[in-house]
């Protein structure tokens, strides 16, 4: 019988090596796989290309991964928020690369990557800085921009329920990029609040079919980034 679950987070991530590209689910803190990210920090994997809508908050989760110097490049739509000082400082010091992608284009690029579509035309960004160096083409009198699909070596995704076959559900607005990223990575590693037996999730309610998932780790009481940020926490420890 298929069983994609692994009891230990560190074992689940040991396949990620230096230089990997890693999609990380989440919009702000909602859907951020914070335990997986912290395990990646513990593992010390460097030179990563991280793909996320934002740049993390405070000194935990994605922000901590960036602060630890493990991210070479961030592909992102909105690397700025009230608590995202870590990325800002490194970016202004020229220590991290940024590829800025409009949010809908980021979603579409990931979806295309997962679906085997190498590129597509979109109206978003025509006539803006985002269009620099990109091919444009007119369809029925309107101009569109050619955007390439996006895939990654790994996806780290937070879901709500998972079964051992990798079928997933999500919680509210924590769904965001998760279902797309699961499809677009060579290896998709998921943290689930609840791990269940096959059949426990009604097939009508499955959002991500298990074929897109390689590994599931149960994290039954996931932390919330906002709580950690509000408490002034640093990962892995006190302020350097």
């Amino acid at each position, binding site marked *: 019988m298929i069983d994609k679950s692994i009891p230990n987070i560190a074992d689940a991530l040991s396949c990620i090596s230096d230089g990997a590209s890693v999609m990380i689910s989440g919009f702000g803190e909602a859907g951020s796989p914070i335990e997986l990210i912290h395990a990646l920090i513990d593992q010390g994997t460097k030179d990563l290309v991280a793909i996320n809508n934002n740049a993390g908050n405070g000194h935990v989760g994605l922000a901590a991964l960036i602060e630890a110097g493990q991210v070479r490049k961030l592909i992102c*739509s909105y690397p700025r928020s009230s608590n995202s000082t870590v990325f800002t400082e490194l*970016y202004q010091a020229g220590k991290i690369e*940024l590829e800025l992608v*409009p949010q809908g*284009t980021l979603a*579409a690029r990931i979806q295309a990557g997962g679906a085997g579509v190498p590129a597509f035309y*979109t109206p*978003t960004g025509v006539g803006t800085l*985002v269009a620099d160096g990109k091919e444009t083409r007119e369809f029925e009198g309107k101009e569109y921009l050619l955007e390439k699909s996006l895939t990654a070596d790994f996806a780290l995704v937070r879901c709500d329920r998972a079964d051992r076959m990798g079928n997933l559900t999500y919680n509210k607005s924590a769904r965001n990029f998760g279902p797309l990223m699961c499809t677009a990575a060579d290896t998709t590693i998921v943290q689930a609040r609840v791990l269940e037996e096959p059949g426990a999730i009604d097939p009508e309610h499955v959002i991500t079919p298990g074929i897109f998932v390689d590994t599931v780790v149960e994290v039954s009481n996931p932390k919330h980034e906002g709580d950690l940020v509000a408490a002034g926490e640093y990962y892995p420890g006190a302020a350097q």
Partner: protein
Amino acid sequence: MSNSSRDRMGLTRAQMAWRAAQDIDDGAYVNLGIGIPEQVANYIPDGRTVIYHTENGIMGFGVAPPPGEEDPELINAGKKPITLEPGASFFHQADSFAMIRGGHLDMCFLGALQVAQNGDLANWSTGAANAVPAVGGAMDLVAGVKRVHVLTEHTTRDGTSKLVDACTYPLTAKTVVQRIYTNLAVVDAGADGFVVQELAPGVTREMVIVMTDAALQFSDNLGEISATKFR
């Protein structure tokens, strides 16, 4: 030094939001940007139902929850806690932006750094050398939503007009803005240039002309923004 609110002319921000809300049709699917546009939801006329979309993946959200009932996984695009209205739905980012880019949303209300007379919009970057660029969903919204309306102060704090002949800041999109609500006026933009449709109480044509860094036309049916419901 920034101006105090006492130096402001025309409408308050709440009044600007009230005026914008009058243009939303019953049953419309609407996306409200962060800032003044969020206030539009407070002034929907009685008898109209509006369904609010937030690009992080919710249709049909409602007001902020009472303190203590916030859910970190139930937030809007501004990353603030929200509640749901009956009939709400969740969806992933590709579906959310299919709603946006595919022209399924009826209206969006956004803030602006500059709007040009032809409807060009700049609202994501001042182009400052050391600033961290961040665009989010702004370029997608204006590229796809059927009606793109802007709520903004008529001028910056130092008095520079936000309504311009041509944007000098990096563009969000070309020729997308149809209507602008400012503290001074309701102004349409597009192929005919800026056309003032309504003036705020106490604001004259000459005042708006002086405060605007672009040519203005005035509608043959130039009206005054109704002030009856204003606090």
